[in-house]
């Protein structure tokens, strides 16, 4: 039996990836893991973009707008990770923890 992979398949996969990332951010307690889950969400968005781009055939080829956006996302995500990890390291130095439940010195 042959089934072609359609746009919907890509959208389901990226939707699941996004949900996994979001669930990870909400459930996990380690800052590093939370950060990984955030990157997973960005990857899900990137996959959606490329899929849409591929299926939006413009003038014979795929619509490259989505691809270009993808490169911007990768670049920005890299910058975000660089800054983010530096902040997490600085916090670890002063608090000796990466557990978010222990980061609670300010409260309502």
């Amino acid at each position, binding site marked *: 039996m042959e089934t072609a992979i359609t746009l919907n398949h890509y959208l389901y996969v990226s939707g699941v990836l*996004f949900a996994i*990332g*979001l669930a990870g*951010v909400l459930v996990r307690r380690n*800052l590093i893991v*939370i*950060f990984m889950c*955030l990157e997973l*969400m*960005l990857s*899900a*968005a*990137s996959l*959606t*973009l490329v*899929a*849409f*781009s591929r299926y*939006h055939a*413009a003038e014979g080829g795929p*619509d490259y*707008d*989505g691809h*270009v*956006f993808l490169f*911007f*996302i990768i670049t*920005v995500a890299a*910058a*975000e990770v660089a*800054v*983010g990890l530096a*902040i*997490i390291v*600085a*916090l670890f130095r*002063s*608090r000796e923890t990466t557990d*978010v439940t222990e*980061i609670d*010195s*300010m409260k*309502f």
Partner: protein
Amino acid sequence: MPVYALEIIVVALGILMLMLDAFAKLEDKRSIAWLGMLGLIVVFGLLFRVEMPDAEAAKASFWNFYSPTGGLSLYFKGIAVLTTIIVLIMAADHSPVIVSNTANPEPGAHPQAGLGEFFALPLFACAGLMWMASANNLVSIFVSLELVTITFYVLVAYMRRNVGSLEAGVKYLILGALSTGFLVYGFAWLFGITGSMDLGEIKTALADSSVNPTAALFAFALILVAMAFKVGAAPFHMWVPDVYQGAPTPITAFLSVGSKAAGFVVFIRLSGMFLSSEFLVGKVSMILGVIAVLTLLIGNLVAIPQKNFKRLLAYSSIAHAGFLIMALACSPKVSKAGESLSPTNVIAFYLGAYLLMTLLAFLVMTTVRRRVSGEDFDAYKGLAKRSPFLAFALLISMASLAGIPLTAGFFGKLFVFTLAVQDSQWVLLTVGLIGAAAGFYYYLKIVASMYLEKAEGSETVANYAISIPARIAMIILIVAIIAAGVMPNLIFGLL
């Protein structure tokens, strides 16, 4: 001179400041801040001299991701520059606190090591805010928004020996990155539905009935989550109080004015595309209305029991976001009827007024912070005796935030309520009035404690040293608040 030269100048100025910090042997690094301030004043003057290319030429050029048209984008660029100037003044005043919290233990290091970047980074954020005001393409909105956000991650966590600042930085980082995820996913869907990255083309495509409404609303919901994070609207406001309290005070001011104004520019543009589509407008404006009600209630009611001035201003900033979203939710029918008071103009006016009064409050706070450690209300008890000028400045600022007549804040709220009446949004109007009434209580509580209570055990007469730039900025802001409160057309004339 083309409009985009302004952003280039600001970025170049920022790089120059970094280079000076690294290579020039400066005795006092605050001179970097003065340089940045002077440069930005020049840029502010140039704002009135830029030429607007016509829309057709702009579309064809390399700069087609950048919309130079419209006085509104210039107005928001002005807000960004003005905010950054005052933030630099505050940063220079705040430098002893920054230095003591970033102290470098190495022997032989410059006593102000690491201070230079604190003055240079706001310039890059400013360039991002200015660019955001002109962004007319999903990619350029995303990149400019991230330029601002990533700079703010660094600035919020800048005091690296201070646990509060680091915690605020981590919270802002995680929630900011989360909202970026939502934004990008929403943009991806928007691109998928409409097949374009250009806001104008997306608007046309969304108005077409062949668009799948479920998918369009899904994209709107994702973008709304991200924008609500950025402007601090409920139910995504949880980061605001903690980040505002932990961040260095000048950066709190920057966050609450600059990033909010820019967030709203993007919010207006993005929600405008959905609101102009006939078969989406009902649902979209209803969702915006619900967000506005929640934000107004949470911001105003939770502000009442606050004990820390910075935290109070955080909730006040949430409350003001509520009023602004209220104006946005009133959009559809009103703009069709061709009223002179369009929601965009009202939001622009409100943000201008909000800039004046909030920056004034933060200027007073930075000055008081040099004498008293901490930002609790106790530090402001009997301030009128110790420094009549500071107390008067804070009085004007609080009166305007509460919306007392003859101040800019009064007209801001009045216009929002007028919009709600024109659009017959009675629920929104009621909640807005309740919020404004609560505002009177918690803003004027501080005024009462400044003028009526006595300070406990501290000095009776004190010489609160107000630096000259801060004093000039305070006087200008006080005059501007009252001028805009008497003649609101002054601000409308700038649009």
